[in-house]
């Protein structure tokens, strides 16, 4: 027996990168705008998707992939709105990856807009590109007004940052201005939306952003 050293210089994320590229090429070829919806548990991700479907489903075709560790609740909620939806259970993982999405992506070649709801947390999903065009990160004031500052990486890579449940800010003593300032400091290019989905605050601004990105593909 003797020892050898083998140089590798192998990118461990290369498989995910390759599959994300394939997903992205498929979506682009079919003119699908895919949005990776990330955010904290209970911040309102599923409700955002549900309300968006109701607002836009008469005009465009929407699909949704709903990621969760084991449950199918989010999928059932979204499928009730009569759109094409697929549940994706990660089993033990705290994030979706390009491989999981790759299994179902071909079912969505005929939609205009595809929501991919990630598993709820602000750390694990960050580094797994799914092949999406845009990233939306949603948090709410009830998670504490330091939630943005504590998770800079996910906000740095977001295209849209939504701070939800602003109508509850006073009750939970959260400073929404501080959250917005933290987000701007980390990511000055992102669209930052103050929202309260239950009260209808900020929802029109979200739809306006969506219309812009849909128009950019010739919608």
């Amino acid at each position, binding site marked *: *027996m*003797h*020892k*050898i*050293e*083998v*140089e*590798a*210089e*192998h*990118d*461990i*994320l290369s*498989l*995910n990168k390759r599959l994300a590229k394939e997903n992205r090429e498929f979506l682009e070829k079919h003119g699908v705008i895919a949005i990776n919806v990330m955010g904290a548990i209970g911040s309102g991700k599923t409700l955002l998707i549900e309300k968006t479907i109701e607002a836009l489903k008469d005009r465009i075709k929407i699909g949704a992939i709903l990621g969760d560790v084991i449950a199918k609740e989010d999928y059932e909620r979204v499928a009730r709105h009569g759109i094409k939806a697929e549940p994706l259970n990660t089993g*033990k*993982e*705290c*994030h979706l*990856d390009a491989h999981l999405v790759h299994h179902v992506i071909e079912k969505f070649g005929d939609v205009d807009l595809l929501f991919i709801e990630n598993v709820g947390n602000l*750390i*694990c999903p*960050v*580094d*797994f590109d799914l092949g999406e065009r845009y990233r939306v990160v949603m948090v709410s004031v009830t998670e504490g007004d330091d939630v943005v500052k504590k998770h*800079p*990486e996910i906000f*740095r890579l977001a295209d849209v940052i939504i701070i939800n449940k602003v109508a509850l800010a006073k009750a939970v003593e959260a400073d929404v201005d501080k959250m917005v300032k933290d987000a*701007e*400091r*980390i*990511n*000055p*290019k992102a669209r930052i939306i103050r929202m309260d989905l239950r009260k209808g605050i900020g929802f029109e601004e979200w739809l306006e952003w969506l219309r812009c990105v849909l128009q950019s593909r010739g919608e």
Partner: protein
Amino acid sequence: MHELSYAQALLDAVLKLAEENDAKKVTSIHIRIGELLLINPEQLRFCFSAISKGTIAEDAELVIEFIKPKIVCTQCGKEFDEVIGICDCGGIVSIEGGKDFILKRVEMEVE
């Protein structure tokens, strides 16, 4: 705990390399991790030791080198240690690197 995903991908790559070299045992694994990947080294070691049991990479030592991202203001050149998008001078801050997970080198025993 996303470390499990990384540990699995790492083990797959290491075992493939070991097989290509007809190794009998993997003794140490050298990796380079970008700090922005938010990987906890203790959890990575724990996951790796759990999933490598019964393979020839069982008991291999994980040698981890962390790489800092380069965070610099594009206007005034100020450097930062934290993730930030805008400098006090108003300039946009660029962030490069810190996102890689590279298997550098593997030490193994062969006949």
